[in-house]
Each structure stands twice: as structure tokens, then as C-alpha cells.
């Protein structure tokens, strides 16, 4: 299992989308494509933007399909970050529905 520690790359305020994209491309996608489960650990992150969460996970869901959500666990999320993740995960699947 791969663990992605967001704070190590993005700090306490996760807002840099380039950082999110790099985490996705370099860690999330290879692990998920290899059939691993991935834990995204938000410990130490006090605040994130929707743009950051989007750049981190949206394209994973769109490119790999909705089933990939079952292979990702989000750990140590505060309530605000949890709310953001739920929004992004939902509308990312919305986009898939539109493409069907």
C-alpha cells in the first residue's frame, strides 16, 4: 500500500496545485495503476483549497473510472478538508456521468 503524506509536500496550507499534480502523477497514478491501494494522509494539513484537492484526485477518478475511489483512503482529514474531498469526489464522478 502506498501512503501519500500531503503535508510533506504541501505544508499546512495545501493550495499549490503544481504540488498536487506532482503527487498525483508521481505517486497516486503509478500505485493505483499497479493495483495498489493508496492512503492519502492529510495529517498536519490545516487547510486545503478545492483547487488543490481537484488537482490531486479529480483526474484519477476521471481517467481510471469511479471504481478507483474504492482504492483510495483519506486519512487524518479535518472536517473542512473532508467536506472538500466529498465535493470533489462527487463532481468528478458527475463529469463521468456526462461523458457516458
Amino acid at each position, binding site marked *: 500500500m502506498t501512503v501519500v503524506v500531503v503535508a510533506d509536500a504541501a505544508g499546512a496550507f495545501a*493550495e499549490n496545485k503544481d504540488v498536487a499534480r506532482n503527487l498525483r502523477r508521481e505517486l497516486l497514478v503509478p500505485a493505483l495503476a499497479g493495483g495498489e491501494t493508496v492512503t492519502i494522509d492529510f495529517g498536519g494539513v490545516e487547510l486545503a*483549497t478545492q*483547487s488543490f484537492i481537484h*488537482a490531486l484526485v479529480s483526474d484519477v477518478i*476521471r481517467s481510471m473510472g469511479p471504481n478507483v*475511489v474504492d482504492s483510495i*483512503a*483519506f486519512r487524518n482529514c479535518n472536517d473542512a478538508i473532508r467536506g472538500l474531498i466529498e465535493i470533489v469526489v462527487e463532481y*468528478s464522478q458527475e*463529469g463521468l456521468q456526462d461523458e457516458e
Partner: protein
Amino acid sequence: MPNSAGLQNIEAFVRRLDTSDLSNLRVSFHDRWVAVHPVVLAAVACAGALVTQNGGKVSSEVPKVATLPYLVVMRLFDWLGVNPGISVTEHEAAGRFIPLTQIRTDADLAAFMVKVTPLLHGQPHQREAVNYIKYVVSELVRNALEHAASQVGAFACAQYYKNTKRVSIGVADAGIGIQASMSRSHPVRSSLEAIELALRPGITGTTARYGGTEYNAGAGLFFTKAIARASRNFFVIYSGDGLFKLRKGSSRVEPVIQADPKMDPATWRNEMPTWPGTVTGIDVSLEAGRTFAQLMSAIGDVYHREVAADKKARYRRPTFT
């Protein structure tokens, strides 16, 4: 620059602009009093930088007004290249404002963010307010950096008003403007129409597809508007000749976050003097209100209700451990 220009009466500043000659900037002031929102300072500094970058001429009078020291400590005259004739010790106001800052890179933005927490040190509801302010600054400045192609980057500043327990933020760029940005993927006939589209969640100028690209979701301005609406504050977007102003709305009605900006209490104006880029201003209250987590929950409800209500039953849910 008028004697008074907050977000509630930002038209007092905008209507005085003449942007017909971008090689020449002349700044004049009300002769007795100048009290303006940071968005006005950001716009004027940005204009000064643009004209200077273009090899043009910037000139400004130095107003003999009681608020001159404020304009000096906010570094307005630094960006206009004009000697104000006085020097002001900043220590008394330190921590209560973030002066005009040019932001071109991630590092510039990060340095600006560092100043947000001291801005509110020791104030009530500090933690939640800092979250809100960092969030909106990030979204507004990143919009400018990623979409505007501004030659001078973005200019930002902020001011904490202790009496009203409010932080006011202004961001301005001299880029392509929202209409040109949205036109890359959507048919828009005016700046105002482009602003309306940009405020809707899931729509971005980088793709015609709902929900955006792998890098842009098209929801930054929607979230920012939601923050202003939830706390019953003003939010202004001025781009090209279009101006959108979210008003506070009735205090007797609980504010509702809307996906459709036409449902908001707002003023829409076109045929304003054309701004060569985009200017955004927002106020954030420090008073007790919705926590950031509660706001995210409310925004999530909007997505459920208005964007995906008929399909959500098929969605898989994220797992939290």
C-alpha cells in the same frame, strides 16, 4: 481616487477611470479625504506597473489629506514611482495590514500568505478568519497567475478594520480579462456574461467540459462567492467593462449559497470603463458565523442539490480511515 470607495460603492472609483491611453497614468485624489478599499489600491498600483512596463509615464499628485500616511504605508506611491514627501513609521500599524505586493510566482504568493496570520493575531475567531482569508487570497491570486497572462502579475493587499471586525482584500491584474479567458472554450458575448459563467461551479475557460480539466475545476470563484455570501459580505469582480457586485442581502434572511449567481443579491453592471484585466475585492468578517467546515458542508449541499441531485445515487463514496 474619490473620498470614499468601499465595495458597497466601488462604482465611485470605477466610473472615474479613463483607460483609453495605457501609456499614460495620471492619478488624482479627492482634495479633503481619501478612504478607499484595498481593491482600489491594488487596481491603481497594477495600473502604475502596467504603464511603467509599457514604457509609459506615471504621474500622481500627493494629496494633502489626513489619510496620506495610510496611502504611504500601503506603498501606493512606491508602485507609482512618486515621492510622497513624507515617511511613515510602520510599527503602529504593523500586523493590521498587508501592503501592496506584486505577486508573480508561487514563492511570491507563499510570502504573502505568511503575512495573513499576523494580520489577525489575537483577534476573535482568528483561526477561522485566517482560513477564510488564506482561501480567498489563494483562489483569487491563482486565478490571476494561471488565467490572466498578466505582464505585471497580480497586485494584492489587505487591511484589517478593528472597529468593524472585518478584513478587506483587493487583487488586481492587467491580463486578458475574464471574457477573453472564458471565450477560449465558451461562447460569451460580453464581459458581464463571462463573469456570470466564471461564477458558476464547474465552468472554466480551459475546457468546454463541465467540471474542468485535470488542473482547473472552474470552481474557485464560486467558492469565493460562497464565502462572501455565507458571511454576508461584499464581493466584487470587475473585468473588461463588466462589474459584478455581491451585496450583503437582507439581514432578516439567512444567506443561501447559490450555484446560479443570478439568484444572489447582486448588482450587475456593463458598459463601465474598460479595465484591462481583472480586479477582485472581498470583505471577510471576523464575527462568529459558520466555521470553514460548516461552509464546506453547505457548499457540498449545493452540489448535491443543484448539480448532481439526479445522479448521486450512483456515486461511490470516499473512504475515511
